[in-house]
Each structure stands twice: as C-alpha cells, then as structure tokens.
C-alpha cells in the first residue's frame, strides 16, 4: 500500500509534466493598450508589443516595438485577432497603460474594462488615461526620448500624480468608483501634439457616472482640485498672479509650494438645496518670487490675502466646471447617502448636483520663503 502510494505520488509529479506552464520566453507582452471607437460600432484595439533580444551575451539589449491595430466586437475578440498577427502568444498581464479614445470614453467604459477585472492575471495596477483624439495615434507615436511608448505614457502619468495633477488611481481603484452611485472620478487626459512631436498631460477629464462627460479641467487647475480632494502627491505647486502692471510681466507672478494642507468639507443637505462648504488651509513655501522683498510681515500678509482671493475664485471656477460636467468627484452624493439617507431618498442626484451650492474658502499662509528674503 505504501509502495503504491509512492508510485502514485511520483507519477503524479513526473507524468504531469509542464502542462500548465506559461513560459515567460514564449509570450509577447502588451505593455500599452489603446481602445478607439470604430466607424461601425465596433471597437478598434491598438497594442504596442516590444520584442527584446540580444541580452544573452551581456551586450546591448535590442528592442523593437510592434504597434498593431485591429477591430473587433469585444475586447477579447480583438485580442484574438491580434494574437493571430504575433509570433508566440499575446499576453496583456504586464500592461502598464490603458488609453481610451475620446469617442469611446464618452460611452460606457465598463464594458471595455470588464475583461481586465474578470481575469486574475491582469495587471490592475495599470494606469487609465483618455486620449484627446485617437488612442491609436498616441500609441503609434515615436519619439519622446523613451524607448517604449508605454514607458513614456507611464512616466507622464506617474509624473502628473507626483506633481498633484492627478489622483494617481489605477484600474483597481477606479473599479469601485465606476460601479458606485453618487461618486465620480477624474481621468487624466493626454494629448498628442504633432507639431512639436510630444505627448503631454492635458488636464483632467471629468467622468459622469461611467462615461466621460467631455468636460475637462485644465492642467493648471488640477493641483488645486487635488488639494481640495485631499490628494496631494509628492509636491503641489501653484503659480498665481499677485501683482498688476509691474515693469516686467514676470514680476507679477508668485510660485508657491504647498507644505501642509488641511481641508474641511461640510455638507448641509436638505430637500430643496444642498450647500457644501469647503475650507482649505494651505501652509506654503515661496519657491519663486522675482519681485522679491519678502521682508516685512505686511508684505507677506498682503500676499496671503491676494493668494486667498485668487485661489478662492479659482476654486469657484473649478466647481462650476465640475457641475457643468455633472461629475461628483468629491463624492458628495455618497456622503449624503451615508449620513443623511432620508434626504437622499428624496433627492434626484443627477438633477440636484448641478444645483448644489459650493462655498469654497482657501486660506493661504506663507510659512517659508527660501533662503533669501
């Protein structure tokens, strides 16, 4: 009996062989994936697939990038078609960026992402971005100094998150916001600039429910929104106009870096109107002020006041844009649902949100001004 068990065990281990091996060398990794709207309602999928060679004898690693594009009714059908064009088998489990074309993003985006959420192997750590124009053009872009388009795009999006321009959310984090009511999110927008041969981060696209509203916040407005959402990256830098008609134009501006911030969001809901007070206290460090002479407290108080005024106005603009896009990125609806369920039941949030009264107040205190006065 013991011997029989041993024979079974040994044959189980040896005869099975390697039937479910997925050899790393036998796959083609798609590192960036783009999805566009096709002309007849189907989707157009574009992938960039790097092929590396020459690393064997310690020499230079040669890398060639294939960019393939195909159409299909579903994402997996398109993947299947791409697989036919590739040596070895196609594998998206190390994808770094998913780019949606503007047109397809304006439809429901969940069906596109569904297969990534369903497959345990997929990399939910990937970034999601919307391309202004076609995703295919972005992925076919060559240049930018980086070897791979995926690296370039990932670098842009990581940099934007570090500079507090985006939330830095990946597919996994977006998933909950995608399916929840009363909570929306922003998606970074990227734009291919063919004139000067670059791709750039071009603001935040506002999602309304599960589709792109088409309304966007500019890249300059993004840091303030991130601060109000409590989503500061590594640094948050604001450049604002504080003087008028100095000798040179450059003297009108101040650049500050946020050291510490404190936000306070209060919701006063009722059935007729919803009022939201946002108080944001910023402790900032002046990192550029060509006008100089930050000696007296009066000058600094003066600057504090001017910054407060400018930023508060800007915050109001941001809120009006958010309401225009009907994009509840502050999850006000969800908070009402959680803390005031009775009010929520009577509200039609889609209708109500554009009517919400936002009262932002941004207080700025200059704490440091570098090593010169």
């Amino acid at each position, binding site marked *: 009996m013991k011997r029989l068990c041993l024979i079974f065990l040994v044959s189980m*281990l040896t005869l*099975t*062989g*390697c039937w*479910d*091996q*997925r*050899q*790393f*060398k036998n*796959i083609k*990794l798609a*590192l960036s994936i783009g999805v566009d709207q096709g002309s007849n309602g189907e989707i157009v999928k574009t992938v960039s697939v*790097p092929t*590396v*060679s*020459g*690393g*064997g*004898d*310690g020499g230079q*690693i*040669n*890398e060639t990038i294939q960019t393939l594009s195909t159409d299909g009714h579903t994402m997996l059908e398109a993947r299947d078609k791409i697989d036919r064009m590739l040596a070895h088998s196609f594998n998206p*489990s*190390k994808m*770094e960026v998913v780019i949606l074309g503007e047109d397809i993003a304006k439809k429901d985006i969940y069906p596109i992402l569904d297969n990534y959420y369903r497959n345990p*192997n997929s*990399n939910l750590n990937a970034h999601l971005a919307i391309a202004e124009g076609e995703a295919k053009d972005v992925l076919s872009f060559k240049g930018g100094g980086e070897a791979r388009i995926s690296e370039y795009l*990932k670098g842009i999006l990581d940099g934007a998150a570090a500079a507090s321009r985006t939330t830095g959310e990946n597919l996994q984090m977006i998933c909950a916001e995608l399916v929840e009511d009363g909570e929306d999110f922003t998606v970074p927008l990227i734009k291919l600039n063919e004139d000067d041969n670059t791709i750039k981060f071009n603001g935040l696209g506002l999602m309304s429910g599960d589709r792109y509203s088409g309304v966007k916040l500019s890249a300059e407005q993004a840091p303030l929104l991130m601060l109000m959402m409590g989503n500061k990256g590594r640094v948050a830098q604001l450049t604002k106009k504080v003087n008028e008609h100095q000798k040179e134009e450059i003297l009108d501006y101040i650049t500050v870096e946020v050291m510490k911030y404190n936000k306070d969001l209060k919701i006063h809901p009722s059935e007729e109107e919803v009022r939201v007070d946002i108080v944001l206290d910023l402790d900032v460090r002046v990192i550029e002020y060509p006008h100089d002479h930050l000696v007296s407290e009066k000058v600094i108080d003066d600057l504090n006041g001017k910054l407060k005024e400018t930023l508060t106005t800007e915050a109001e603009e941001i809120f009006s844009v958010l309401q225009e896009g009907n994009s509840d990125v502050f999850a006000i609806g969800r908070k009402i649902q959680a803390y005031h369920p009775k009010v929520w039941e009577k509200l039609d949030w889609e209708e109500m949100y554009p009517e919400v009264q936002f009262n932002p107040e941004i207080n700025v205190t200059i704490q440091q001004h570098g090593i010169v006065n």
Partner: protein
Amino acid sequence: MGFFRDLFQREQRTDRRIADESPEPQEPSTRNLSKNIDYILYALKRTEDLKVRILKKGDAALLYFEPLVDQEKVQASIFTPIEIGKVDSIHEIPNAKETRNLEEAVNSLLRGHAIYIEDDNRRISQFNVTSVFNRNVDEPANEKVVRGAHDGFVENIMVNINLVRKRIEHRDLKVKFYRVGKKTNTNLAILYMEGIADPEVILKMEERIKSIDADKVQSPGYIEEFIEDSAWSPFPQMLNTERPDRVVANLMEGRVALFTEGSPTSLIAPSTFFMFYQAPDDYNTRWYTGTFIRLIRLASFLIAIGLPALYIAIVSFHFEVIPDDLIAPIKSSINEIAYPPVFEALVMVVIIELIRESGIRLPSPVGQTIGIVGGLVIGDAVVRAGLVSNVMVIVIALTAISSFVVPSNELSTTLRLLTFPLIGLSATLGFVGLIFGFLFIAVHLTKLESFGVPYFAPIAPLRLTDLKDTFVRLPIFMLKTRPKDAHPLNDKAIEDSRKWKKNEQQSKKP
C-alpha cells in the same frame, strides 16, 4: 511506532547497568615457553611481522609486532632497567602489566605492546611500547575561524580527549570507552558532563553503540549511520566537528560527544537544526556582529534551497510578479535560450557540483585553476553559447555560494540536494509546488528527532527563551540558562556575572 518506542525506553529506564564488560575469552598460559609461543603464533596466523626475540639463551622470549612498536621505547622500558641493574629479571620491571591469560596477551600484542614470557613461568609481562605518529593539532581546514582557538582534533583519540580535558578541568567530565568493529576493534569514546547531560540520552547512546555489530567501523560517518534516529532523512542528526572549542561548548550544554580512534571528527548528539548554524566565530565577535552574521547564515538556508525553484516558478508560471523595469532585461536574456528553465537550472547546478567535486580532489594549485576555468570560462561561454541565460547563472551562483555559508559541511551537502526536489516541484506546479515543498521540509524538520530530542527546537516545540541563541546571539551574560532541547539536568549556566556594575553604581552614590 510510538508504542514501541515507549516500550523501548521503559526497558532502558529499568536497566541502569552501564558498560558491563562482556566476558573475554580465556586461555590460561602454560609453564611451557614453546607451547605459549606456539599458541600466540597460531592465534596470529604466523604473521611475519611478529618478531620473536629469544632471550636468556632460549629460556625467555620477547614478542612484539615490529611495525607497531617503537624500538627506542623497547630499549628504554625493557632493557635499560636490566642493564643499569635496577632489577634482576624483566618480570620485575615495575611498569609491566601482568597476566596469565594468553588471549589477553594476543590482544595487547595487537595494540602494539611487547610481551615477555619465560620458561617455567606462567607470568606474562606486557609493556606499552607502541609507536605513535601524530600530526600537529592544526586548525581544521573546513572549520576555520577568524578569532578564537586555532587547534583541532587529530587522528589520535587520546590526544583529542586531552584537548577536551585541558579545556574542562572538572571532575564531572566523564569519558567512557567502547570497542566497536569485530575485526577493526576500533577504540571509541563518549564524553559528557555528569550532572548536566541527560542520563536517558546517554543510555540511548550506549545502547545504540553496543548494538553496532559490524566487521569494520572506520569513521564517525559509519557510526553516525548506525546510531542516528532517521537514516532516511536528508538532514544530519549529529553535528560533526573537528574543533575542541565547539565540542566543549556543546558538552557544557549537556550534550554527548563521540570520538573514534583514527578520525579527527567528533560527533555531537543530540543536536538540533540550528546548532548547524552556530559557529565559534559568533561568540568571539561582538554580539551585534554575531547576530548579524547568524541572520545572514539563516537567510542563506532559504536562498540555498529555494532561490532556483523560486526563479523557475516565476519565469514558467507567474511572470506577473516581475517588476516592470526588469521585464526587458529578463525577457531578453531568456528569449533565445533553447531549453526550458528547469533544464537550464539542472545543467547549471550539475556544472557547479562538477567544479566543486573536481576542486576537492585535486592539489590546491590545480584546484584554483579548475575554479577559474570552471567558474569564469564555462560560466561565460555557456551564456554566450545560448545554453543558459545569464539570469540563471546569477541565480545558481548565488545558490551555490549560499550553500557554502553553512558552517557545517554535512548540512551544506544536504541543502544542495534539497534544491533538486524543490526545482522539480516548482517546475511542475509553480508557486503551489514550491510552497508544498517548503511545507514538506517544515513538517519533516518538526517531526525529526535526534536521540529523543526534537530536532527543530526551539522553534518546534517553541520555547521563546531559547531563541536568544538561535536567530540572534544575545550578549553572553544574558545566556543564563542552557537550551532546553538537550534536556540538561542543570539549567543554570551563568549566574549574575555583571554584579560589579551594581556595586560600582552603589559606591558612586554617596
């Protein structure tokens, strides 16, 4: 099995008689000289190196094995006393051992003694004139230390016991001799501290030594396999060492040391897994350093058995876990390799073992050449030829280095063997297989016993206070109690040895 073991142990507990002399064959000597000599010659198969010197004009004879005795000693202890006239007859020489048993005389001849027989006299005088060739007590080549004692055991059991006794000048150090091997008649000694070592362990040891019934017992390696608990386990259950200081430290923990004639290696039992990771260096350096080095050593255990398996599991099953920036280098290095990673790994491991094995046998200048040819040339060429990827070379080289970190050669070979099943498991089942493999090893280690003592102590059974000298090495004055795993009778090893500090502080106060 447990029932039988209990039965076995109970029997031992009742039988407390130790080292009962088995009756030696008796053959009384006669008064006839030629009959005596004939008997001895017959017993020794008329071997031609037995020298019979006829003295007193045929009335007496001196017998000895020519290769075994030292002629100068014969002169000094037998003839000089006669010549200077101190005694009248050789029988009267006081350092002679007397017997009337011819069988005993034969045995003492084989030990290198000279025997003297006279006609008309049944007395047989035996003189210890054995010639001894000893090498110096040099530091063992495979257990070198940076700081600490630089002497090591030699092939002579008496010298070895001398080295231990010099270090433990205490009446509790007890030595017991046994003879094993029916033909080789090898001298074997066990040493332990009476009052610290567990009598049950000693009983077990004796029982097992006595049950050895073989013609030849050559080295501790033989004895180890005769007396260890689980001969089928890959893990050594007795610690091999050639260092007196290591033996002394283990004796003081209540363990038993076993020496054999003709081998510089001593066996220490009962031993635990973590003993193989303790080196004398740990206690000679500052305790921070000792702790750090010991942690590195224990990490080397995981690397040595698990790294190739982990790498294979990753590149054959779970490449999702490779960091984004490593994808291109790893993929480019394995893309053009013809063989699957398992095969690569096996080829590399076999190459490394070949280099190692050839390096041991060859004289050291040639050995170095082999190291360079093997390590650099083959390593580089094999990558250039596209047989093995350079990541795999890194992995296997790291594994080989890690396996040599263990202070014990026995465990090092075990680790290198354990790599293979883990490679197989991870090549067939990926991470699942790897985890199963580690689980099997953990279960086995937990179940293993060395002389009735848990092998994986103090982890299983867990004893937190004994961890002080396991993963870390706390300062010596904090290692107050002996580890519990060897069941020492006396727990306390160190009393408060830093009383002076309190005294100094008190004297400062007023």
